[in-house]
């Protein structure tokens, strides 16, 4: 499974846009890029998924360059409730869809 690397921690002020980047140096052709959010004492929650270019949903945008060696999750106007750990596991488009989580990126939103 492809490995992902992320920065460990970042702080942001409430109301700002937050961009979190993940490296996918070994991503496979059939892998999708997914992002999950995890609050303390809870399981991860799916945020968004993409293959390439840009994907947007009601909570976030995902930017994937043409080489797919990285991805950037963009959270517009973060609030305190966005404080969480964010993961970017690749997911194969076939087979068992097991997720290979890295250590994640802790985002702390400051009032």
């Amino acid at each position, binding site marked *: 499974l492809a490995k992902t690397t992320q920065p460990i921690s970042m702080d942001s002020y409430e109301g700002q846009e937050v961009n979190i980047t993940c490296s996918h140096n070994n991503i496979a052709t059939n892998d999708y890029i997914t992002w999950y959010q995890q609050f303390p004492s809870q*399981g991860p929650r*799916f945020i968004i998924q993409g293959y390439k270019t840009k994907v947007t949903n009601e909570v976030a945008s995902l930017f994937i360059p043409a080489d797919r060696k990285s991805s950037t999750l963009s959270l517009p106007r973060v609030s305190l409730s966005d404080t969480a750990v964010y993961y970017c596991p690749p997911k194969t488009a076939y087979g068992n*869809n097991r997720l290979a989580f890295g250590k994640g990126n802790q985002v702390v939103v400051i009032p």
Partner: protein
Amino acid sequence: GAGVSQSPSNKVTEKGKDVELRCDPISGHTALYWYRQSLGQGLEFLIYFQGNSAPDKSGLPSDRFSAERTGGSVSTLTIQRTQQEDSAVYLCASSSLAGGAYNEQFFGPGTRLTVL
């Protein structure tokens, strides 16, 4: 509209004892996954079920770990002769089916296992 549930939420056991962790997936979800999250670590895949079969057990760390799923629903993860390094949060996830591009996994709240 219940999500994935897990029990117990917390389990404290003594080294050498056996433990059973339970997962109730979302009704109708055929794919079920177990992951483990140790302190300060990311989530580590353990095992995957499709229906009652486990075609991928490659993440189980040792033969002390086993899992089963019955009726295509409830799954039990069993750890025999627990060791202190087994202490972690064990997370279960389910999805409507595996092998598709857009099947997200829904996670339960986890079981925190502490081995003394």
